[in-house]
């Protein structure tokens, strides 16, 4: 997939979606940097995962923060201080991922690529790493902001058949 740049096109849409959400709903500029495959990644102990499906491609989107950064981001998002990840912090991280993916899918759809998304889920606790399947191509993007760094990982596998992808759930 990398040879024809499709994974870069997908990544660009998710970067745009992330930048737009932070700009509009948090009033915050973020700087995106695509990491080399073997580059060290910021630590993460909060990750929101959204599954992606479609007839052309399937994959996943993972948004990861350190806990302190996640709480700062959610507090800014809500306009009031959030001190704990459960339940407000986790719900907030899920909603941020939901909106980012929704916006990215709208951008992809305008380019003729129709995809669906799953309900976001969040992983909490401990420093963790997330690995993708070998048959997917991925981009890891580091975002730097005044609230701290965070990462987004987009993994895509081109589907080789015309069959249905995952059950469609339009972005909310």
């Amino acid at each position: 997939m990398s040879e024809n740049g499709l994974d870069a096109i997908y990544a660009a849409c998710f970067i745009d979606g992330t930048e737009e959400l932070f700009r509009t709903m948090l009033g915050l500029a973020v700087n995106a940097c695509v990491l080399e495959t073997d580059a060290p990644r910021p630590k993460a102990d909060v990750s929101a995962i959204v599954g992606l499906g479609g007839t052309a491609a399937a994959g996943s989107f993972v948004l990861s923060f350190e806990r302190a950064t996640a709480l700062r981001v959610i507090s800014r998002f809500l306009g009031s201080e959030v001190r704990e990840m459960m339940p407000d912090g986790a719900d907030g991280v899920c909603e941020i991922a939901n909106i980012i993916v929704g916006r990215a899918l709208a951008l992809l759809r305008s380019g003729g690529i129709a995809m669906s998304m799953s309900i976001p889920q969040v992983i909490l606790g401990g420093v963790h790493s997330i690995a993708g399947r070998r048959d997917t191509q991925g981009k890891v993007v580091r975002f730097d902001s005044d609230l701290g760094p965070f990462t987004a990982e987009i993994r895509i596998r081109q589907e080789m058949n015309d069959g249905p992808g995952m059950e469609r759930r339009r972005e909310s």
Partner: protein
Amino acid sequence: MKALLVDDSATMRKIQKGALETLGFDAFVEAGDGVEAIQKMREGNFAFDLIVIDWNMPNMDGLTFVQKIRSVPALKGLKVVMVTSNADRPSIVAALKAGVNGYVAKPFTPDTFKQKVKEILGGPNGQGAASNV
């Protein structure tokens, strides 16, 4: 003023509530999907100044909810704004045909949301529902 906030994300309902409070809303009822929203409407005797509804939710989505309430002649005057990531033109047209008074795409700024609500309520800066097409 009283608003019914319908979204499966408690975070989004809280953001909307904060914005509406600055516009003078002082009573809120919340629901996580269209089925619960209809139940809350019955409990509240259908007396709401504004309904804010998401599109994609479990059990009953926002479009179906709007179609249901617009099929009841007595509820045709309820003001409804849809807040959703479905920002493509066919979705907007479908929502307007179903009977929403306004449409706000996520992500949105607080000012964008508040301006749309003002328009829908016919406030001093608003042009009414026709401006939302």
